[in-house]
């Protein structure tokens, strides 16, 4: 009877009491078969998996288990309590390999801190669901290879804090989630920290990457040779680049926030390289070195994005045939740099550096806004002169230089007002500290003036 209960498939066992019973049942089996230790400290989970029937739902009681695990038939492996089931692995292979279709794994904590080439989890089956896993790795976190239609939901992947793992350079680290030849997967609500690429997709089409939180890695989301990827509502902070989209078609990038990608000399919020027919809409790019960088990309549509307080708002290099409308540039050091980018349709954006005139009162300026290509051209020939970025003399020179203006990247009818007022920065301090500092300065100089004028008499 207990055996039947344990093997009951589906989600009928969900619930604390039943899960507990399943746990007790499993320990009982272990005792009866003399193959698995009764104590949770070192039972062989693999044996349980091997004994389970297709479609079984195994609930694992809390405790520490040794890897590796290999799953070759459809079943569900569910931690009794999320995060309380620890799978430890110290070998050179994968800590968990899923070869079968329709496998679900939920709530495990996987610690796999050996620096190695094999990933912590390798999935080759289709329709695999990995959810609420915590993965501490010194390799790739989750690899999907030829795995279709899976779902990765609410997992946490972080790089190991062990000395050997910390000694690894950023470029040699593993990716958080790594897809190759894997299509139609949903990757949602994951958190990834301190990895190489947060989510890496190569030759993998029509995947959906939504609501993930990607930080302190090289690239947050990285697409190579993908078609129809949808990148929606993700947050990236402190990566070298928030989203790197290269050699792609028909990617949609909507509602993401990429902030503070500014430490590296190649940092940007969002990069499009050889990307075509991309839709980039309603993203917020804040405090990055470059908000959006577009190179050799065409037929992309950029609309309703907000570039706030970046060093450079947008950079267009040899990019043609793109459409930019309804975007806003506010508080950037330089709104835009452009080189060799003609035939783009740019209109109706808000540039806070632009002083427009609106005679007919339609809300759009009658004076166009053109991006001066002088500095861009100079540093292309002499990158060392990047030192002069926004220096007073350079700005002066740019004002003088007006040659060949019709070939500049130009917004024909910029917006007169921003579309929405910017919200107040949540981590902004109240100004009282500066108020006090200012008062101290004023009081100090006041006393000085008084003394100097009095003592001279």
């Amino acid at each position: 009877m207990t055996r039947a209960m344990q093997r009951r498939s589906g989600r009928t066992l969900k619930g604390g009491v039943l899960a507990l019973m399943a746990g007790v049942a499993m320990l009982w089996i272990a005792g009866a078969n003399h193959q698995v230790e009764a104590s949770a400290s070192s039972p062989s989970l693999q044996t349980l998996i091997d004994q389970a029937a297709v479609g079984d739902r195994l609930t694992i009681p809390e405790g520490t288990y040794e890897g590796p695990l290999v799953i070759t038939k459809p079943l569900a492996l569910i931690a009794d309590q999320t995060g309380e089931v620890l799978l430890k692995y110290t070998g050179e292979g994968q800590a968990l390999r899923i070869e079968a279709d329709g496998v679900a794994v939920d709530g495990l904590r996987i610690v796999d801190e050996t620096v190695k080439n094999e990933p912590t989890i390798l999935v080759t089956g289709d329709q695999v669901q990995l959810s609420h896993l915590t993965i501490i790795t010194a390799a790739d976190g989750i690899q999907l290879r030829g795995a279709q239609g899976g779902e990765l939901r609410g997992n946490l992947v972080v790089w190991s804090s062990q000395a050997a793992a910390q000694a690894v350079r950023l470029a040699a680290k593993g990716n958080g989630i790594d897809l190759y030849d894997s299509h139609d997967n949903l990757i949602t609500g994951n958190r990834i920290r301190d990895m190489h690429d947060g989510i890496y997709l190569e030759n993998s089409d029509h995947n959906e990457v939504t609501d993930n939180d990607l930080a302190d890695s090289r690239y947050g989301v990285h697409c190579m040779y993908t078609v129809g990827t949808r990148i929606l509502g993700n947050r990236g902070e402190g990566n070298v680049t928030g989203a790197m989209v290269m050699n792609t078609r028909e990617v949609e990038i909507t509602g993401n926030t990429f902030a503070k990608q500014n430490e590296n000399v190649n940092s940007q919020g969002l990069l499009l390289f050889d990307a075509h027919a991309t839709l980039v809409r309603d993203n917020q790019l804040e405090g990055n070195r470059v908000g959006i960088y577009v190179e050799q990309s065409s037929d992309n549509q950029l609309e309703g994005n907000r570039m706030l307080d970046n060093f450079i708002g947008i950079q267009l290099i040899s990019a043609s045939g793109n459409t930019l409308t309804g975007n806003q540039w506010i508080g950037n050091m330089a709104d835009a740099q452009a080189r060799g980018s003609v035939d783009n349709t740019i209109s109706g954006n808000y540039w806070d550096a632009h002083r427009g005139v609106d005679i007919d009162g339609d809300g759009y300026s009658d004076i166009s806004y053109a991006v001066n290509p002088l500095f861009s051209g100079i540093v292309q020939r002499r990158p060392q002169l990047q030192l002069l970025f926004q220096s007073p003399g350079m700005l002066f020179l740019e004002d003088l230089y007006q040659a060949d203006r019709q070939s500049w990247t130009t917004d024909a009818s910029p917006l007169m007002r921003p579309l929405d007022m910017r919200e107040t920065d949540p981590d902004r301090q109240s100004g009282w500290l500066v108020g006090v500092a200012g008062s101290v300065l004023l009081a100090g100089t006041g006393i000085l003036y008084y003394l100097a004028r009095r003592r001279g008499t």
Partner: protein
Amino acid sequence: MSHTLQIALREVRMGLRNPWAYSFMALFALFMLSLLLIQSQGYVQGYTGVTGTMLNLIVYLLPLMTLMLGSFSLTGEREDGNWELLSSYPVRTWSWIAGKYGGLAVVLLAIIATGFGLAGVAGWLTGGGFDLQTYGLLLVFAGSLALLFLAVSLVVGTLARNRWQALTMAVAIWFFAVIGWAPLLIAVLGLLPYLWVKPAVTALTLLNPAELTRLFVVVKLGAGSILGPEYYAWVRWIRQPAGTLGFAAVSALWIVLSAGASAWFWERRRSRG
């Protein structure tokens, strides 16, 4: 030492009674406040458009102001005959120059402190204002610019025969250091072989106090990455506390060399009557 202090105190007293000092103070304060007004919504933090505007306008105004105040103070001594009188006392030229520098530095820093103080209080009252670290860095920026250009102004005041000459030289130096710098660099470095460009830019930057200070503050504001891969090592170094010490050392060297040169010229002139 006591001579230096006496001279410095006299300089402070004179400086703070000088209508020039007050007109500059009014100008600087007005200009800090107008920057806040332009940016009534915003909040000054990190390396953004607002901070950049502020940096650039300070670079425009302060060096010129400093060069004029400093050099006029020296030529004034000669034109008014004070120096002739002072020469008959047993005051060493060194002490005198050091005293002048110290006194003028106090006056200039007071002007800057007034401007920043007003802007800080006004920003706080209007609910916009500054992030504390950015405020501090801008203050350091203005202070360093003033101290460095004050040292240059001593040389100008020494070489110029009267106020008019001093004015001409001050404007010329200001123009080259602030506005003409970029065109000059671009023109000269365009002629150099590629490999020489970076060492040349680095060396020339050390020679221009305005650029030196601006770049130091840009890096400290966390925007070193905008300077590009060529300066990666420099930027990393400047971001550390050692970078601050390095900047302080280079500035001190600048000040000592300029003030030393100026003292040497005065001494030569004094001994030759």
